[in-house]
């Protein structure tokens, strides 16, 4: 039930987030494996794998790439859909935590779990409509995307590497990273100019992560010649708006 005394979501000055471009994601899962590699080796890990070489391998991941199909033939589209914690500005998973292990950082808006305080009651995962949290079956604590908090501020890394592992791994540049509260940032511009949207707006969680919609790209190459008839072509009669064969421009048109 909606709690009428719920305080208005506080607005932070800075909110780091990912902007995911569905237009160019090719579903290669490089972000998934890169995320797993970085986070299983770092402060957030290890991310347990169970039955890794068995019939049904399962493990803890912070990031998944899913595939959806939209519309029907002949307009069918395949959309690859990366999914991780959205670092909501009003995260429903945080206030329900009985120990305070789940928290949202005031400095940059990242939603984190303190693994030393987590009792593993899983209540926060129930309170996330996106299924962004995964319980680690071996460590018995709730885990989630940290936005690579142990990487983005690491001054030992070259500045261009101070980005989440998934962003660095993406071969098509489908993942942008930055401060969505800074209107001049790359992510804010992308959201503004390319119709960036949030997932499940109906629950008013105000996800910080945004998605850029897939755009149907129409070919700019001229369509097959209209009213083309072989006889006309052989007789040297041009179709409307088309060049005569052998005029030198045909090769370019037909490409």
């Amino acid at each position, binding site marked *: 039930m909606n709690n009428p005394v719920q305080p208005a979501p506080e607005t932070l000055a800075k909110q780091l987030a990912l902007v995911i471009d569905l237009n160019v994601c090719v579903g290669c*899962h490089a972000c998934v494996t890169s995320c797993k590699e970085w986070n299983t080796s770092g402060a957030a890990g290890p991310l347990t794998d169970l039955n890794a070489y068995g019939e049904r391998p399962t493990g803890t991941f912070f990031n998944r790439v899913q*595939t*959806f199909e*939209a519309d029907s033939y002949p307009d069918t589209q395949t*959309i690859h859909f990366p999914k991780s914690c959205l670092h909501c500005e009003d995260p429903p998973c945080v206030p329900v935590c009985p120990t305070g292990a789940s928290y949202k950082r005031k400095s940059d808006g990242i939603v984190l779990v303190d693994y030393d305080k987590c009792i593993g009651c899983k*209540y926060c995962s129930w309170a996330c*409509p996106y299924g962004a949290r*995964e319980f680690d079956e071996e460590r018995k604590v709730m885990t989630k995307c940290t936005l690579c908090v142990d990487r983005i501020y690491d001054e030992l890394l070259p500045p261009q590497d101070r980005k989440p592992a998934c962003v660095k791994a993406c071969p098509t540049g489908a993942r942008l990273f930055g401060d969505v509260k800074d209107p001049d940032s790359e992510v804010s511009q992308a959201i503004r100019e390319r119709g960036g949207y949030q997932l499940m707006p109906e*629950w008013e969680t105000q996800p910080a992560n945004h998605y850029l*919609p897939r755009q149907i790209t129409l070919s700019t190459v001229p369509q097959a010649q209209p009213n083309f008839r072989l006889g006309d072509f052989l007789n040297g009669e041009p179709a409307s708006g088309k060049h005569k064969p052998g005029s030198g421009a045909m090769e370019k048109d037909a490409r």
Partner: protein
Amino acid sequence: MKPALSIILFTTIAGAAQGMVVALALATLAGIAPATALAPMLWAATGMLLVALVASFFHLGHPLRAWRTVLMWRTSWMSREVIVLPAFIALVGGWALLATLAQRDAVAPHWLAGMAIVGAVLLWYCTAMIYACIRFIQEWAHPLTVVNYTTLGLASGFVTAGALAVMAGEPGFASDIAPWALAATALAWFTRALSLRRNARLKPKSTTQTATGIQAARVVQKSMGMTGGSFNTREFFHGASAHGMRMARTGFQVLAFALPILLLAWALLSGSALAWLLALGSQAAGLLAERWFFFAQARHPQNIYYQAVS
């Protein structure tokens, strides 16, 4: 949602203990409390609450850190429950101790009975709000969740009190509260049926379209991104068939409400001890099934993201 045995046991056993404490408190206020059985019944309630508390620990990944759960009482209903539960156990245990020491000649402390009622209601409220406050689990996000935790607890508490009374050789007290047990069970059936009716008509607010933002009439998942399952596919899917769900829905209403009402009517008319015990057994089984159904029926919006393996 996947029902967890630890939570099913915790909520049903604690609910029955709370109901029994309310029954004994009301009887104390009305001056009809059982003379010899009051203390043992209060001890039984204390024991049931402790068993429930132990069961709840099995839900935790790190039980030794459980003390931390009292910290976030400002925002978390689970934290509030964790504060109220031990306080209520202490209250009931204290009353049991007092009843044991005072024996039968002491005046029943009305303020203690009143506090016990308040404590039981507070605990029901906290427990139910853990579920009712999650706004996107639409089956739970309704005041009926709080109402049902209360009425189901009251019904099972009155039935438990009556059954324990006949076992403790207080058939008089049992026949005194038989009409109350009957009424509480009928009321619980009514309020639970209201929520069943509401849930049957619910239209999920989230769709594949809102979950992905893909604007098309037809959006279906072709791959969830893994083949061997994950926490998301284990925690939020109950795995029962539609037929199984219908069976559970009918079964818990028969076992928890219909049969106990008939058995309690029999007990009311004949004073039969067997009827009380059968009513207790039937309702206990029915309420365990009811609690299983309560969790299984909740459709979590995250399931939209986990529809197809590949």
